[in-house]
């Protein structure tokens, strides 16, 4: 009886309805969807704005570091000062310090100004030479030591302008700010303008930024990324060579061969946890194990590489296991069904199909490692290093810096010119990261094409 009444009720509800009129419930469902879409759009817009803001601030601060102001002078390399014995003995020349070179530069500048008829009131020869970087005599000395035959000749030389003059042409220093500045006076800026008009001073692309080593606090104009780029490259090499085979082998074993028991479950949980361990903890581990216990040198790329390998391994293992899991069971069955051994089925069929995922995971892990700073601070890679590490493999044990650490140490320094350098270094780092991610995408595409 009840059944009949229910059926009757239902019959009443389902009156024939027009599909041309939208009922309230459908309208509410559409409204919910529209709200969700709007929120999604807002979220995307916020992320894009944040990214654009970040990039814009880095680019406006940092792009200027790729240009540098130089003063071009014809310098007479006076044998009376640089090689008193006159026999071009390299050892004797190497003993001459930068103090002997500074007057040569000052004389060259005075002569050049006299020749062009440039003179600014209140700027004597001693003040005028302050326009040129304190690094210039050292650069000149290095040039002479590398080729003593040039002594006695007059060489046209591009000398770094001082950080303040460089800043003047990049808008960081103005005549007003110069009045309050101990290091530069408005008259000196006036002289710089005159020199520029005479063609002795110019701003152009700064290759030295990529190749030069770091410089001291008073010489921001000379500071470059050379040692940091080398150090980072060495570390990436170590991380790649160690973590890819180790990580892939571990994942294949865990995913395909290991028995499912408490012990492997424990390993699995630990790997997942390791991926979430703060990177500075790995730095402490590296300090304790690799430096204090194993006795490896401080500040060396080998230690940095090992620490970053430990950090990258969980990422690679997790990515690789996910890639292996994504290979359909039917492929394994097919291989086993024709009598392939477990290992043959994995290496002939499963691994090639998982390759794009493995490569993507590895490169993302590497990119992560490239940008890692905290653990490197603890193993001493934040040291001020001016000597390039040797070529690999000996260079792995030489002190070096790393790109993110260089950014960190430059932001710690007082001179505003270093802020510009730090932003420039961030741009270089970002270019590397984008390049690595692009490689990941290209590799994935290429391997996926092979059905």
């Amino acid at each position: 009886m009840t059944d009949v009444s229910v059926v009757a009720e239902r019959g009443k509800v389902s009156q024939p309805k027009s599909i041309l009129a939208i009922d309230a419930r459908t309208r509410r469902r559409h409204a919910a969807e529209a709200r969700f879409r709007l929120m999604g759009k807002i979220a995307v817009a916020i992320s894009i704005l944040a990214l654009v803001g970040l990039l814009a601030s880095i680019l406006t601060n940092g792009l200027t570091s790729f240009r540098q102001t130089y003063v071009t002078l014809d310098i007479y390399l006076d044998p009376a000062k640089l090689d008193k014995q006159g026999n071009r003995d390299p050892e004797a020349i190497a003993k001459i310090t930068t103090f002997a070179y500074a007057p040569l530069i000052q004389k060259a500048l005075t002569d050049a100004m006299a020749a062009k008829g440039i003179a600014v009131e209140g700027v004597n020869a001693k003040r005028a030479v302050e326009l040129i970087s304190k690094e210039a005599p050292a650069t000149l000395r290095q040039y002479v030591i590398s080729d003593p035959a040039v002594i006695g000749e007059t060489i046209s030389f591009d000398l770094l302008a001082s950080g303040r003059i460089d800043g003047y042409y990049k808008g960081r220093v103005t005549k007003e700010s110069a009045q309050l500045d101990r290091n530069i006076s408005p008259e000196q800026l006036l002289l710089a303008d005159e020199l520029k008009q005479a063609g002795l001073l110019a701003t152009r692309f700064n290759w030295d930024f990529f190749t030069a080593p770091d410089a001291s606090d008073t010489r921001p104009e000379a500071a470059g990324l050379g040692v940091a780029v080398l150090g980072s490259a060495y570390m990436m090499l170590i991380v790649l060579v160690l973590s890819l085979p180790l990580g892939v082998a571990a994942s294949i074993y865990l995913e395909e061969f290991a028995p499912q028991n408490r012990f492997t479950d424990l390993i699995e949980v630990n790997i997942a946890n390791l991926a979430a361990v703060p990177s500075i903890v790995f730095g402490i581990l590296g300090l304790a194990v690799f430096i204090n216990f194993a006795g490896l040198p401080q500040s060396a790329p080998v230690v940095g590489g090992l620490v970053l390998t430990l950090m990258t391994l969980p990422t690679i293992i997790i990515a690789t296991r996910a890639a292996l899991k994504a290979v359909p069971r039917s492929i394994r069955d097919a291989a086993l069904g024709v009598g392939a051994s477990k290992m043959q089925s994995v290496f002939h069929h499963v691994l090639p199909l998982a390759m794009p995922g493995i490569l993507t995971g590895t490169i993302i892990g590497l990119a992560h490692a490239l940008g890692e700073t905290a653990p490197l601070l603890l193993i001493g890679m934040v040291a001020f290093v001016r000597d390039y590490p040797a070529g690999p493999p000996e260079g792995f044990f030489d002190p070096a810096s790393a790109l993110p650490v260089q950014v960190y140490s430059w932001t710690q320094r007082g001179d505003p010119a270093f802020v510009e350098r730090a932003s420039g270094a961030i741009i270089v780092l970002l270019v590397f990261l984008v390049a690595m991610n692009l490689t990941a995408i290209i590799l994935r595409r290429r391997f996926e094409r092979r059905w």
Partner: protein
Amino acid sequence: MNNMSATITTTISTKAPAMNQPKISARGVQVHYGDKHALKDVSIEIHPRSVTAFIGPSGCGKSTFLRCLNRMNDTIDICRVAGHIAIDGEDIYDPKVDPVQLRAKVGMVFQKPNPFPKTIYENVAYGPRIHGLAAKKADLDDIVASALQRAGLWNEVKDRLHAPGTGLSGGQQQRLCIARAVAVSPEVILMDEPCSALDPIATAKVEELIHELRENFTIVIVTHSMQQAARVSQRTAMFHLGNLVEVDDTDKIFTNPDDQRTQDYIMGRFG
């Protein structure tokens, strides 16, 4: 109904001669998946150079039993097999038996066509290559060609052996998988619902192929299609809830089964 009786007559006419020595004999096979008792005391004899069909409703254990015959169940951690299965009188669960070697002797074709994502040639050549069946490239070419011919695929693919196997149609892919199994020269071929993913025309081709393969191989086929069992097999085994209900000549199962459950299943009363 008319159709069905017609096919049954053909099966009777193609019925294999009586066998005295079974190719596969199973006694008291029990399979557990974890806590689930999937197969209960199955004993059956499978005759050489004939087609044996396993029928029964879903989850009745027919695929499980099929996978016991080439120890594919070994790859599942929670699966335990007890009892005795012998091929040509040799116990395949003997500790001395290497399942890898066994699977060269007992080939398998799966429910969904699963060609390797490689060329047609590589798909067929893979088995012979890992088993070292060909000394030279020319030998391997011969094996591939004859396997594809036996699978009735040669004329369709001979001009594009180096095209991807996954680019073939579903039916062609399944015949490629059969060629892949045949290329290793097995003695037994297990087929787990080989036509369930195929359209009727592709199914007809595979069934025709099974007829031809019967001359050289012992074939065990799991199928959900009663008509298919009637068309291709000489003997039929009916499974229900992990039990082997009955096994007999196909024409007898489909005309006069001993067990009421077989009768009901064939008539479509359950399953």
